[in-house]
């Protein structure tokens, strides 16, 4: 911790393995990345923009639309985030070994 790396990209120790992701995963998978972005953003905006659903009609059953929308929105968000998570896995560069070691021992941090 004596000399912090002012420029992390320069002067790497030769023993270091190369950086884990040499190319930018977003640039490598533009469609997947965009899909993730849209899903997450839509999940936020569709409840943030209140005028979309601040109305009484159409009633769904006995529920005014405002209340029905908020109820239905939650499972929808859960689904959107789950899909986003699955898509994010595809962004990872081909590394077939990673799936098998999910429960391996956890190193307790840097020190």
């Amino acid at each position, binding site marked *: 911790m004596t000399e912090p790396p*002012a420029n992390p990209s320069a002067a790497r120790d030769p023993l270091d393995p190369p950086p884990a992701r040499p190319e930018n995963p977003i640039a490598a998978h533009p469609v997947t990345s965009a899909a993730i972005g849209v899903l997450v953003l839509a999940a936020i905006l569709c409840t943030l923009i*209140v005028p979309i659903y601040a109305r009484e009609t159409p009633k769904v059953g006995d529920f005014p639309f405002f209340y029905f929308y*908020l109820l239905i929105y939650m499972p929808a968000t*859960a689904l959107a985030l789950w899909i986003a*998570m699955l898509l994010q896995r595809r962004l990872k560069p081909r590394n077939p070994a*990673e799936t098998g070691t999910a*429960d391996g021992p956890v190193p307790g941090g*840097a020190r």
Partner: protein
Amino acid sequence: MSNVNAVVFTIVVVLFVIVALIGFAASRWRKADDMMLLSEWGLGGRGFGTFIGWFLLGGDLYTAYTFIAVPALVFASGAIGFYAVSYTIMVFPIAFIFLPRLWSISRVHNYITPADFIRGRYGSRGLGLASAFTGILSLMPYIALQLVGIQAVLTVMGVAANSTNTYVKDTPLFVAFVVLAIYTYVSGLRAPAAISFIKDTLIYVFVLVAVFYIPTRLGGWSHIFGAAQTHMAAINPATKKPNGAFIPTPHALGSTQFDFASLAFGSAVALFLYPHTITGALATKSRNVVKRNMALLPAYSVLLACIALFGYMAIADKTTAAEVKKAGNTQLAVPYLLQHMFPSWFTGIAFAGIIIGALVPAAIMAIAAANLFTRNIFKEFFKPDASPRLETRVSQWASLVVKFGALAFAVWLPHTFAINLQLLGGVWILQIFLMLVFGLYTRWFHRWALMAGWATGMIYGTIAAYNVHSDTSSHWASSSDIVFGHTVYIGFTALILNIVVSVVLTLVFKAARLPAGTDETLPHQYTADPAEAPVAAPAGVGVVSD
């Protein structure tokens, strides 16, 4: 104690004793070699998987505030109370964006608190202190709010309610709190993690039963919504305005829509800045557990929406509405409703669920505040060479102090609108947004500019909240304010001010070439997942090798 229902009382006491025993036994759960490490006491060994993580985070995020204050607000003001539903939906996509990065960097550097990260990122002890101070300050009213929730239940149970002496009246609260304080001291984060299973089971059972059963007693949903709509539109004789809004109104009609959205957005952003939610997230064992839980936790929001609807049920039930009015405390709406609708034994289960639902987050909050004190105040400024063992000791004691501080907060401060207390904490905690969340992506901001922005936001937010008055209270009436003709959540305005100051001063300080401080983090560490690949080791070597 004359009007205490024996069945309700017995069930609550029995469940409380079970929970206390589990709290103590939890110290042996998932036992580690050295339990006196702060990551063991304060983060449960950082080893919780998706399943336990879901219960822990659910128990952490959805507090007694959820069960008492949200329906109370719905009961009093209508649709605006549903901002809490919108907010707990929005919080997960927002956290999905930045929380995995915070998890990774904290795991690589063994950061225990968010202030640890801020200190390391900006090389600034001052910023670390500022964020730790903000965290502790915001957690105090939040813990107090949990106590207010317990108080509401105890009042309806009739426990010592007819005594006017504060100390006699609050004795059960003191007892509950001392027990909580001791098992948190002993077991650390393992205690709330274990108890959250019971809490969530009780809550799920009672809410699902209530949401299907109560409407059958009240003439169906159409009657409940009808009664609520009529009540909200009625003119309040005291204020000469409608009681509330059944659907958030557009700008032309008083603009509750903007208030609704800014409250929801501000609270959603604030939620995962709170140290206790970060504590819960950092206690999980991998990056994917965090992401998976962001997708799974909205299940709790369904529950919250049902609970918010209890507010309307309380309006539709004439007896409940009359009793709440007589007591003059809207927070009693849900306890009274449950008491009237259910047989004693089920009321006991529901009340126990709410009380335990307050204890879980209160424990996690106290732990989070204690960790902040230990890591970012005690160790940083008083004893830099503190051993891990001493750190844990200090944290244990600090958790006790924090709890009793919150108890004082709850007993002495007025709690007509508990929700506003928490919202004031939300205003404060939002002020660390820039240093924490932007800090996860960029080092562009200058540390001193962030400090100035933080101070501006804190001062503005506190003064603005203090100055809000209503017909019934002279200060602290609400955490919304009118800015440029819109009713806006104060935390939101304060954050915007904070951002403006930080950006402008960063430009100035950079031009003046003031020292930027050292950054101990490396870019690839923000996406590291040490459980999957040993990224941590090369990072450490890279720093030390010079």
